[in-house]
């Protein structure tokens, strides 16, 4: 690290500005420094936008501790007043005047154009102006007319945001409400302890003290070993974080669930999910001996997105991805952030316990891609559409505490709000077909979100405890 930071030009300091040509060795070295600048810049921006992950924050803090003067910059940026003051300084330069001077000194001249070219530009400009003024007039006239007839009534609807809520169903059918459970051991399943780490976090610990894969080996031949299944589910307005027995991390969005064994045995790790779940699957080669042996696959069965329809299956090897399979969304969306997964559809009547899908039906998903799985009752017309260039940050924004949408219609936004704020939504009349792009912290009250949408042209009213979207 220090090598990375140290200025390579101590001795060369007295050299004048000639260094820094591309391809010149000095530049090569300095470029790595600039990479560091770029990296820290990106992290600071993420922090500023509150999009920074825990790992990234750790990374950033490490780098900042190494450089006290960078820390100062961070403080400046995160102080709103200071940031605005700095932006002001940033803009306090007459760029046009300087450009004039620079282009004079560098002997630049704007390429001269022919008489005809010049005139054609003017004609086009004039036509454009006419078109625009007509459009403006038309638009303003239309708006005025609307304004006189329609009264704008802002709605104040106060619904607090969701929080860390979930319930755990044990193998014996007992249900534990995790909201009021105290931190510490909340249940025991065979040799495993279920531990509530803090609000919103659940983990498993083997009471024998051995790491789980070792036990795995011990029990390899023991067919009578009983496997206990637990189900963690969140209500509407809830979210929860779970560390699976193999160390894989799972985040549950509102109205979602995951069913999993309290210990993974054999070569397969298999879980079943509904709703929206974000996975950070732990690498499979945890076994201490013989690293080259068979990898333990991780399989996620996604329950039907609509009643009666088929589900989906995702096969994983150490990866990060998000599944969105809400019943009211019609499609199962799988977004891959890292690694590799394979996706297949499962017919409606297929049992979810055995691998009934043939390998040929799997489709491979690469990072940055999203698979849209549309399932049908018969399973015959199932289709998997792979979409490239997905904004993965957007897909997992919920996990980072943001409502995020891009070109989303009002109904999909309202479905998201209904799940998080546990409210019911209805529609009246013809709702305008606007598309929205944006994000807002999930910690905001629903009124903030609705105000934004109102400002953007939507209207709401409250009726029988339901939020009604009106034209």
């Amino acid at each position: 690290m220090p090598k990375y930071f140290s200025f390579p030009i101590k001795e060369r300091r007295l050299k004048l500005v000639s260094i820094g040509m591309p391809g010149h060795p000095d530049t090569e070295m300095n470029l790595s420094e600039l990479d560091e600048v770029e990296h820290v810049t990106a992290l600071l921006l993420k922090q500023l936008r509150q999009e920074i992950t825990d790992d990234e924050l750790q990374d950033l803090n490490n780098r900042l501790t190494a450089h006290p003067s960078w820390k100062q910059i961070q403080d400046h940026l995160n102080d709103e007043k200071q940031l605005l003051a700095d932006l002001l300084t940033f803009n306090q330069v007459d760029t046009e005047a300087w450009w004039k001077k620079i282009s004079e000194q560098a002997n630049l001249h704007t390429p001269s154009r022919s008489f005809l070219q010049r005139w054609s530009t003017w004609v086009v400009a004039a036509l454009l102006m006419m078109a625009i003024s007509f459009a403006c007039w038309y638009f303003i006239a239309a708006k005025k007319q609307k304004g006189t007839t329609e009264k704008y009534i802002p709605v104040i609807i106060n619904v607090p945001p969701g929080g860390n809520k979930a319930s755990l169903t044990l193998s014996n059918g007992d249900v534990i409400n995790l909201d009021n459970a105290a931190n510490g051991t909340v249940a025991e399943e065979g040799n495993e302890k279920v531990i509530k780490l803090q609000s919103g976090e659940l983990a498993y610990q083997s009471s024998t003290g051995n790491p789980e894969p070792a036990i795995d080996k011990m029990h390899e031949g023991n067919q009578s070993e009983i496997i206990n299944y637990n189900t963690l589910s969140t209500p509407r307005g809830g979210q929860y974080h779970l560390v699976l027995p193999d160390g894989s991390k799972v985040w549950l969005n509102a109205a979602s669930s995951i069913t999993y064994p309290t210990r993974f045995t054999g070569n397969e790790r298999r879980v079943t999910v509904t709703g929206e779940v974000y996975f950070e699957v732990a690498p499979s080669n945890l076994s201490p001996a013989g690293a080259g042996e068979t990898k333990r696959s991780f399989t996620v069965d996604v329950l039907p997105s609509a009643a009666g329809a088929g589900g989906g299956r995702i096969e994983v090897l150490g990866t990060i991805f998000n599944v969105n399979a809400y019943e009211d969304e019609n499609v199962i969306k799988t977004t891959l952030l890292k690694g590799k997964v394979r996706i297949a559809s499962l017919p409606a009547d297929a049992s979810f316990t055995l691998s009934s899908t043939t390998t040929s039906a799997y489709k491979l998903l690469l990072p940055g891609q999203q698979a849209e799985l549309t399932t049908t009752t018969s399973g015959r017309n199932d289709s998997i559409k792979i979409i490239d260039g997905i904004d993965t940050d957007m897909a997992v924004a919920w996990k980072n505490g943001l409502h995020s949408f891009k070109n989303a219609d009002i109904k999909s936004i309202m479905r998201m709000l209904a799940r998080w704020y546990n409210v019911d939504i209805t529609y009246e009349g013809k709702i305008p077909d606007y598309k929205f792009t944006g994000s807002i912290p999930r910690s905001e009250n629903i009124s903030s979100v609705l105000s934004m949408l109102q400002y953007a042209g939507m209207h709401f009213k409250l009726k029988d405890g339901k939020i009604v979207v009106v034209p």
Partner: protein
Amino acid sequence: MDCTNSPWGGVISHRGMKHQFQDLSLLQEFKSGNTHAFKAVYDMFFPSLCFFAKRLVDNDAEGEDIAADSFIKLINRHGSFDTLPNIKAFLYITTRNACLNYLRFSQRQTASKKDLALLQDETEEHVLSHMVHAEVLREVENEIEQLPRRCRQIFKLIYYERKSADEIATLLDISINTVWVQRAKAIQLIRTNLLKKGMLSILLCFLAMTDNHS
């Protein structure tokens, strides 16, 4: 309608530019000496370069001079750059060196050699941090520049010029009608609760939403 006469059309703002012409074609034009490409690169980096230089030499006029010099140097050897990061690296490194030279020169008039050495070490220590600062601000400014025109206007009036809502209404000639009620409400919203939590993401989305059909 703040269109320019550039052949690529529209305002050449940093981020917007990516949409208007690919980095590659910009680079080709830059290499072949196209003035518009020079201007595009200038718009992209000059404010941040100025900020960097000003902070480094702690003198606004001198900082701007140095940044401008770096730019002239860039243009004079325009044929030798293959990537945008290369151009950026050249600009920052050239500016840094010029700033250090300036400091050395001005200190030589007043301070002893010992002080000079001390100063240089301190400066070296701060060079990268100022660079980071300039780069972050460049990105933030990019985002603000990307806002819809009217929103950008309001943002700048509120935060850069500290104008009150009334003043803005007069300035932008927004009458007291439905639209204005909404705008005022919006400003209030930005100002009170939203700004404190992640100014950028919220403000940006907030304002972006307004432009979908305004």
